[in-house]
């Protein structure tokens, strides 16, 4: 392994670890479920993807072994983590979890009320 590739791998892994730390701070510091979910599902996804990319490059350059399972893992995390974040947020909204008291706009609520009225007039 050359010096340049070592530095690139180190940057990838440290950046991934840093983003995971940012996620942890976001989950602790942010006020309500939705903002916490925003921090958790975005920063953690990117952080894990960076760590996995670093791992893949490391083993490719060190042993000449291209691990396709890591690539599959990156694709899998990239596809599933935002969807799980979406589902958690939606479940929180539908069970009536309150938003932060400084939030100003809730378009989804008026949309749900509209849909409810439509269903009433149809039945």
């Amino acid at each position, binding site marked *: 392994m050359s010096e340049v590739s070592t530095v690139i791998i180190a940057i990838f892994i440290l950046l991934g670890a840093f983003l995971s730390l940012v996620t942890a701070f976001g989950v602790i510091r942010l006020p309500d479920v939705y903002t916490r979910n925003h921090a958790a599902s975005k920063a953690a996804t990117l952080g894990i993807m960076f760590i996995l990319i670093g791992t893949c490059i490391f083993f490719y350059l060190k042993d000449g072994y291209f691990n396709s399972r890591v690539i599959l893992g990156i694709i899998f995390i990239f596809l599933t983590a935002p969807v799980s974040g979406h*589902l958690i947020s939606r479940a929180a909204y539908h069970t009536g979890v309150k938003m932060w008291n400084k939030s100003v706009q809730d378009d989804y609520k008026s949309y749900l009320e509209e849909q409810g009225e439509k269903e009433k007039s149809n039945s």
Partner: protein
Amino acid sequence: MKTSDVILQTMTKVISFIIVLFALHLFFAGHYHPGGGFVGGLITSGAIVLLLLAYDIKTVAKIFPFDYKILIGLGLLFAVGTGVGSLFFGVPFLTHAFGHFHLPLLGETSLHTAVLFDTGVYLVVVGVTMTIIQTIGESE
């Protein structure tokens, strides 16, 4: 209030293929790498459970139109069959054999009868897991 599950269902369609492929990979890599029938079976049933989460039981029963309890019996039959098969060659029960074969598409491969035993494990694990989950899910 009816909500739409379109994001979950679309992602499930894509993801379940990746999960099943990974399960098959683990199953076939079991002889030389970590993996095998147990993990492969569990991950396969994980993919079916994901389908159960995104859709309802009736839809999944339409996709996989077989009784999972039959899978358990079939798997046990595979396991016992490999054991009994060795008796026909005058060797002790469950003696395995392997050989190198030249297959038309895959080239030189080493085939081992332990894979047949592992297929039994795989089928039993899928059958048991899905029977447990569907029985609990269907009870009111």
